[in-house]
């Protein structure tokens, strides 16, 4: 059985064998996971310096040089690396006084911070399958982002206390700016909000929970939602980026909503993390420094702040190590352009805009298919996996250890 590292669900029931340079009759991979597994076969990187192919030893030595000569190095990426590799990365950042940040900085970072601090109660996806009777997809569309979310955990499967599942015992609610694919499955429990209107929606929910008239257009529907929430035995909210971006500076309102819901019944939240091991990095960094992301080890002690976010540090750094990420594609254009002009080390299994612009490219084995390790699922459950294909490529962990030794 293989484990898929395509998204943060880390499905472990995959039956895949690689034969004659291809995959066929692989079982249980969703379309996203299948695409992820196919990535073994195309656009693979080779070790290179300034676009010229070199051998691995030279690329690693060049990477160490770049980091040694940097006064304000940035180490970025991490969400697509194993727990073990992330631990080495954090040690490396500390050793060279670098700024270290991961993709959560412009993703679920703020939600993850609240959950790991215990300010927003959470649970596991297995708890969802076994006990949840109300699933709320808030600003998230798992049918497109995490295809097997509804069939493995949140709506369709049977569980210990939910033997009759979606037909009689589970309700799913979608709060979104548009009728997404998931919202279509939630039929009459789809609530449309305006972009940025989530705070208003939460105030309305708080009103109905207190028996007051909500300040919304469709009062009847909101009152029905209130009734449903009050009758829920175990509810789970799955906040996606749609909600996180809207509520970034108003998280105390979401905290208040969770507190209020938990006064009436049981409610939990599980963040809809994208990359397969973003949570692993957040947990590791938090254990070491107390912060989930945006840390600078310059001067020895760990400092946290927006200046250490990749969005800032990409502009202020003088060299960057990018591992398993493509910031030139995902960062805002101006920031990406500034970053592209700096000496970059790209550790990546496949070619991307970032590897094309990087000074040093180091190919790595794809975690989950060619390299084993541990990862943390979106709900905090640690999943250990083994590779399914033999590869001569070094793993992320091995590359980072060798760079660290060479500095």
């Amino acid at each position, binding site marked *: 059985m293989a484990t898929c590292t395509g998204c943060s669900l880390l499905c472990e029931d995959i039956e895949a064998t690689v034969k004659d340079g291809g995959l066929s009759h692989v079982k249980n*991979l969703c*379309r996203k996971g299948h695409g992820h597994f196919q990535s073994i076969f195309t656009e693979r990187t080779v070790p290179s310096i300034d676009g010229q192919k070199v051998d691995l030893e030279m690329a690693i030595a060049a990477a160490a040089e770049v980091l040694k000569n940097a006064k304000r190095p940035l180490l970025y990426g991490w969400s697509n690396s194993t727990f073990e590799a992330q631990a080495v990365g954090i040690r490396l950042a500390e050793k060279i006084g670098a700024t270290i940040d991961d993709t959560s900085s412009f993703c679920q970072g703020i939600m993850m911070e609240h959950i790991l601090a215990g300010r927003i109660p959470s649970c596991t996806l297995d708890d969802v399958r076994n006990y949840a009777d109300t699933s709320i997809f808030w600003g998230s569309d798992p*049918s497109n982002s995490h*295809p097997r979310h509804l069939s*493995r955990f949140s709506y369709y499967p049977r569980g210990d206390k939910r033997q009759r599942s979606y037909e009689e015992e589970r309700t799913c609610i979608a709060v979104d700016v548009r009728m997404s*694919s998931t919202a279509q*499955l939630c039929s009459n429990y789809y609530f449309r909000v305006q972009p940025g209107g989530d705070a208003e929606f939460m105030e309305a929910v708080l009103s109905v929970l207190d028996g007051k008239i909500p300040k919304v257009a469709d009062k009847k529907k909101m009152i029905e939602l209130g009734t449903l929430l009050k009758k829920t035995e175990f509810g789970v909210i799955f906040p996606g980026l749609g909600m996180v971006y809207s509520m970034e500076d108003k998280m105390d309102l979401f905290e208040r909503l969770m507190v209020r819901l938990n006064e009436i019944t049981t409610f939990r939240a599980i963040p809809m993390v994208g990359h397969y091991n973003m949570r692993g990095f957040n947990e590791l960094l938090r254990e070491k420094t107390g912060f989930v992301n945006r840390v600078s080890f310059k001067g020895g002690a760990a400092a946290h702040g927006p200046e250490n976010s990749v969005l800032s540090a990409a502009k202020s750094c003088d060299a960057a190590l990018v591992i398993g990420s493509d910031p030139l594609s995902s960062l805002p254009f101006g920031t990406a352009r500034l970053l592209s002009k700096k000496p970059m080390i790209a550790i990546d299994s496949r070619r991307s805009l970032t590897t094309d612009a990087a000074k040093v490219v180091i190919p790595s084995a794809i975690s989950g298919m060619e390299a084993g390790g541990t990862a943390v699922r979106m709900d905090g459950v640690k999943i250990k996996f083994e590779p399914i294909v033999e590869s001569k490529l070094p793993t992320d962990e091995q590359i980072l250890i060798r760079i660290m030794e060479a500095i």
Partner: protein
Amino acid sequence: MVSAMEIYMLLPKTNCKKCGVPTCMAFAVGLLRREKKVDECTPMIEEKKYEAKLKKLREVIAPIENASETGLIIHPEKCFGCGNCVVACPVNVAADPTRCGIGLGPQSDRVILKVEDGVVVCNNLKECRRFGPNKTLCNACTVTCPSKAIEFV
């Protein structure tokens, strides 16, 4: 999925009865049920004035001809591979309760739907509840699909 009315609009609408049924509407329904074939409407084949409509008719009927005996059609290009239908199908759950029942991929051979190579494939359609003398209008797989990749004729 094309409707009987849409098919009717492409027919001659003369009720000539040459196909064996009394009205063109009955013929349209018969086409949907796969009891009739387009070629049985001889005026459409023989008279040149129906050429354009005949072409369109053949186009809309084509997916129906590929439907299975239970009327199930899968559009793999629309499928997300989400497994909702695999976990919702009552026959799947009965055949593999410790796997499909709880959201995992099936291991039994008696399941009807499973996800292979990223999209859903079907097997053993004789086990489907819409088939056979005691058939029911089960729609578990179609209502749970987020992309309308699986539908009934």
